[in-house]
């Protein structure tokens, strides 16, 4: 890892810890620099966008880590499309509940955090859409899908709904694997998965 990358990582760690301890509204570049053992000038050299860039990059990194953890926690795609997608929903729901920092931000600082999430949202959506397109293609090869399935459209549809249900579960108890399985089988993938 280059020195530059190492410092960037340390600065993002410091940003995350500052937000975790003091909240997003109180975040300053100065405090991040002190915590990272660096100077304000150096932080600005690496992150010319200052505070906004630190926040955006930290969220982006957390989202990537979160996504990797969700995929790792779900049953492999080979186990069957419905079980895989239901597993993604359950894992994402659980990890979101357990993500203490994010939970606090969402409840206490929703007005500050959601606009940042809105800029990250397209990244999450395209990452998940790509992942689901792969899982749908594999399921198609295994003969799990109806022959008239438009995979790109199904991936787009399933991704936006998975994100919607994970973000706000509404009337579904997504801590229950059977509930999540029924949601995915009967509502999200009803038109593409063979009975």
């Amino acid at each position: 890892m280059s020195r530059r990358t190492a410092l960037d990582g340390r600065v993002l760690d410091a940003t995350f810890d500052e937000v975790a301890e003091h909240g997003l509204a109180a975040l300053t570049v100065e405090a991040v620099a002190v915590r990272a053992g660096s100077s304000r000038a150096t932080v600005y050299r690496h992150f010319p966008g200052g505070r906004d860039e630190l926040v955006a990059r930290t969220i982006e990194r957390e989202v990537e880590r979160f996504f990797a953890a969700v995929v790792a926690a779900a049953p492999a795609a080979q186990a069957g499309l419905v079980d895989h997608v239901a597993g993604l929903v359950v894992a994402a729901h659980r990890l979101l509940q357990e993500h203490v920092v994010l939970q606090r931000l969402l409840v206490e600082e929703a007005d500050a955090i959601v606009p940042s999430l809105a800029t990250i949202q397209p990244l999450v959506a395209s990452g998940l859409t790509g992942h689901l397109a792969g899982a749908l293609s594999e399921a198609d090869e295994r003969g799990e899908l109806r022959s008239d399935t438009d995979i790109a459209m199904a991936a787009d549809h399933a991704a936006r709904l998975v994100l919607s249900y994970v973000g706000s579960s509404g009337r579904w108890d997504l801590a229950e694997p059977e509930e999540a399985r029924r949601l995915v089988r009967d509502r999200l993938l009803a038109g593409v998965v063979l009975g």
Partner: protein
Amino acid sequence: MGAISTTDAPALAGPVAPATDERIRAAALACIARTGITRTTIDDVVREAGVSRATLYRAFPGGKDVLVEAVLGREVHRFFVELSGELARHDDAEGLLTAGVGGALRFLTEHPALGAVLVHEPGLLLPQVAFHRLGPILDAAAAFAAPYLRPHVRADHARPDHAATEVAELLVRVVLTCALEPTERVDPHDHASIARLVRQHLLPALTA
């Protein structure tokens, strides 16, 4: 009405005629469509409506916040009235879903004030429809849509009312996500595109 709109009568002078009230709301909506909510001032609305400040404050005693809330309330009401009109014309499930999802998406994506807010000040709107705040919106919209869906739930379903509400909530999510995060795969103005979404994904979810 002439006296009310041309003089700076004190607030105690009595209620504002409904037509004036309506003109102020329409003017506020036009201002928001031009510059968004934050940059719209009471003076802008007064000029647009051709009424006095006193008239405006008599109609909306709290000023801008109350006026914005009233405009919002009127637009939500109009949304549901227009949608009921569309839905009442369809007996078959596919026609109902296509009209409902297409009509709702067209209303939201063509709405000039909503479009301006999304472009100029997304931070004002998005927190209101995300995470735990989405719950009440889902409940209200699903309660509206469920009765239309109920006749189309499979006859042997163990909990048909429950199923209708679940599908109603699903449709609300489809409409909201497609309106807020547009996708090239769902074009509100292309009937065939909505019909494809309905046939491939929504009708099977309703009849599952």
